[in-house]
């Protein structure tokens, strides 16, 4: 299977969008392209599984390698393992839903879809890159479309939010850049090839300086405390599809980078800094949860809860057990699907009622049964109800964390667990107030339920959530070998 197709399809679609004549064409091109991407990702999954079933145990599959900048040993080198495939699947689901959710964008439709496709191209490229240069290239490609999406089509204080987001994310990638250079020169082999780099040992002193840079750099993308402040502003100002992409895909770039680049290439330092990561992650989890309690705007509620939920990703990585890393990846997938769905529903509600304030909403279940049912599903998934993906992912992270026998890890795990209670409070309150009770505004009575594109978008994402929730084994089997490989490089703990 030719992995480059994952980049070529969005690129071709983006160019076609630029050349197309009217908004209708633009929408259909984007829709068909994202549908094709989803088909391709599912095909990739089945091809990958059959390769593995046939006993192909090489670390990365479907590799492609071309020399790009020969003097610096830069290669266009791509390949996938289970972890990247799960991220690619996530991206495909979210992109399709995002494209469907933007069907009503009237202002500069062409540019809007062009930027969406460019953003998805950056994400796909990032997840399949095995060369640090290519990886960094795609990481930065994914930043600027977000800036324009928020700044042009956003609402509220959009210029401020767009600027904050672009600068903070670029700050993160600047740290990543320094880390990449350090790996390149200090590893002694002058190569950006991650597979090769994972086999050489980088001196522990170098790791100690540059691991934090890489981890924090990628961490900014995934809202590591205290660099999470772009999340609420960015998400709340972005247009619906923008928020979906931001929370669903873009925040996952960071988690994936922390895992694949920082932890995988500098395992000793990861061990060394694990307590700090755990502390920061626990703060993010609890702080995010409590901050959500105070929010009155649905988008802010989801944005702050994203900080909390992404904390689980970092917690899973910091705990450094095989199960917890598996849980971190599952949480990335689960949170991506769930939060994209949440933003989609909020978008549907906002488009109809023109308000996102929880106190102004009420009784919508009677008027928009479909929208509110989806709202219930996503709310219950968010608070971790069994049967949905949220439960599986968070449970795996907790299980993995508990495997660390030391007191410190146990305390952190218990603290993180407590956030579930807080989550239940704010989710049930917000969802209940919005969907049930008396209808607060008689103007709401004339509103229509979801249109076909919104229904399709919601169904796509709900399918993903339920598929993971009911049958998590296929996902964990997919991720396990990758997690095991990362764990195999972590020095074992000496218990005394």
């Amino acid at each position, binding site marked *: 299977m030719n992995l480059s197709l994952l980049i070529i399809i969005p690129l071709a679609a983006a160019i076609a969008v630029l050349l197309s004549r009217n908004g209708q064409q633009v929408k259909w091109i984007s829709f068909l392209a994202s549908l094709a991407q989803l088909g391709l990702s599912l095909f990739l999954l089945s091809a990958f599984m059959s390769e593995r079933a046939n006993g192909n145990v090489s670390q990365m599959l479907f590799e492609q390698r071309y*020399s*790009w*900048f*020969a*003097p*610096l040993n*830069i290669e266009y080198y791509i390949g996938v393992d289970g972890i990247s495939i799960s991220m690619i699947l996530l991206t495909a689901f979210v992109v399709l839903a995002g494209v469907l959710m933007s069907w009503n964008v009237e202002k500069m439709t062409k540019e809007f879809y062009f930027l969406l496709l460019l953003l998805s191209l950056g994400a796909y490229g990032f997840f399949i890159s095995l060369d640090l*240069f290519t990886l960094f*290239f*795609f990481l*930065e*490609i994914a*930043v*600027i479309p977000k*800036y*324009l999406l928020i*700044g*042009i089509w956003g609402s509220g204080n*959009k*210029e401020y939010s*767009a*600027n904050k987001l*672009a*600068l903070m994310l*670029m*700050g993160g990638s*600047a*740290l990543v*850049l*320094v880390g990449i*250079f*350090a790996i*390149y*020169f200090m590893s002694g082999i002058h190569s950006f090839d991650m597979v090769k780099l994972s086999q050489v040992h980088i001196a522990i002193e170098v790791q100690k*300086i540059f691991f934090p840079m890489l981890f924090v750099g990628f961490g900014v993308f995934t809202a590591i405390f205290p660099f999470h402040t772009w999340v609420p502003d960015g998400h709340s100002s972005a247009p619906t599809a923008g928020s979906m992409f931001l929370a669903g895909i873009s925040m996952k770039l960071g988690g994936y980078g922390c895992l694949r680049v920082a932890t995988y290439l500098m395992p000793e330092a990861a061990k060394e800094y694990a307590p700090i990561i755990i502390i920061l992650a626990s703060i993010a989890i609890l702080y995010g949860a409590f901050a959500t309690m105070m929010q009155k705007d649905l988008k802010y509620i989801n944005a702050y809860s994203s900080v909390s939920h992404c904390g689980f990703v970092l917690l899973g990585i910091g705990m450094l057990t095989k199960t917890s890393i598996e849980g971190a990846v599952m949480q990335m997938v689960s949170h991506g699907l769930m939060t994209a769905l949440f933003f989609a529903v909020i978008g549907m509600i906002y488009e109809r009622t023109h308000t996102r304030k929880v106190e102004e909403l009420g009784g919508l279940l009677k008027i928009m049964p479909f929208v509110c049912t989806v709202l219930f599903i996503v709310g219950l998934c968010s608070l971790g109800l069994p049967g949905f993906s949220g439960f599986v992912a968070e449970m795996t992270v907790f299980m993995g964390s508990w495997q660390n026998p030391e007191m410190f890890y146990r305390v952190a795990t218990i603290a993180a667990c407590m956030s579930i209670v807080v989550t239940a409070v704010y989710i049930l309150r917000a969802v209940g107030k919005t969907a049930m009770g008396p209808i607060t505004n008689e103007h709401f009575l004339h509103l229509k339920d979801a249109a076909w594109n919104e229904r399709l978008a919601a169904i796509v994402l709900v399918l993903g959530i339920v598929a993971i929730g009911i049958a998590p084994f296929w996902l964990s089997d997919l991720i396990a070998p990758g997690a095991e490989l990362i764990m195999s490089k972590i020095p074992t703990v000496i218990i005394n």
Partner: protein
Amino acid sequence: MNELLLMKSELAVTAVIFILLFIKISDTTSNETVLKIVNALLVLNVAAGFCCMDVTGELFSGMFKTNALIAFEKNMLNIGTLLISLLSYEWLRNHRHLPEFFVLMLSSLLGMFFMISSGNFLIFYLGLELSTIPVAALCNFDMEKRQSSEAAMKMIMSSAFSSGILLFGISMMYGTTGTISFAELPMLLTGSPLQIFSFILLFTGFAFKLSVVPFHLWTADVYEGSPIAVTSFLSVISKGSIVFIFLTTLYKAFAPMGEVWYNLIFLLSVATMIVGNLFALRQQNMKRFLAFSSIAQVGFILIGISGGGQNGISSSVYFMLVYIFSNLGAFGAVQLISSFSGKETIDSYKGLYQTNPLLSWVLTISLFSLAGIPPTAGFFGKFFLLASGAEKGNYILITIAALNMIVSLYYYLRVVRAIFMEKNEQPIAAIEGSMYEKAGLLICVIGIIAVGLYSHFYEYIYSLSIF
């Protein structure tokens, strides 16, 4: 015959200058015709540069030398000059002294050619003077504007001052070593205090010309006062030629003093990036804005130069190639807007996208390239500069540079924000540029996209970068 081939770029430029003089004497043709002829000649000049590129040799007992790298550098400058001529079409069309403009600009270009081909300090100095004095006259080419004369005055004063310092350094260097040849100098350098002192004077002269902080104060005023065509010539072509000869002198003539110049460059590049960026933050006028941003860019180039070796040369030369396209693209768009509407402030760019979508994209792509955002060439250029600097293991420098990239992104985004996001009651009216300007901007955009993604440009420059 072969000796003539060695000087082919210089001879071609001289020929163009002579033709222009004849045109001036005849003085009957209209500006449009002259511009047609000039642009055709400049295209021929670029084409002439690309034939017989790998001729290597020396003339005048080593005073003048050329090789494939130098020929490539000259071609870059030729392309840049052609682009400036194309992009300034609207402004030039109505100018009374059109042939003189080109005579002066090409004389300056000729001086640069001699300068980057120079094999000793004498011809280097001659070339330098030939390249700066016509530019001072060019700065005054908006004849009815007082600011323009002021810019010319500041330009001539500061360049005379810096040339004086340079000359002082050269003479002391001659006094201590007894040679002015780049080839003999390394063997005679002993690192005595007087030599270090004279080297610092020389370095200061270069720093003036490159507008390295703290010798940058003339830049903003000169850039703002001069016509945009001249500003772009100063900030791209002139700066490029200085970077090329700077590489030659540092890497070849002063190779034994590597320690001294490494530390100097380290300090100055940090200062240049920070000061250039901080000043660019507050600018309202696009020309001043681009002036300060170009100061910050020089800080990045210095990082590339600090790396030394093949990577140092190739990354700096490659960055200049990228910089020619990106900066001229930005200046071209600003020029077009300025000559049609007379507006030059960032505030007046608000809502530009509603009226001029294509021009807005050109300006945005150029600014993204200057900021180093992929997939534009600027990303690759900055990456290679930092890679060259990182080779020395000075990660403090790299971290400072990476953080400076965020600051610079902030102000480039200010312009993008004005264009795309902010509302304006009276946006700049739709602009219909001529064929020349469209061609110029198209070349810039193609350059910005292709030079980066298509890796053969870098690989080619790398293969040439051997002294």
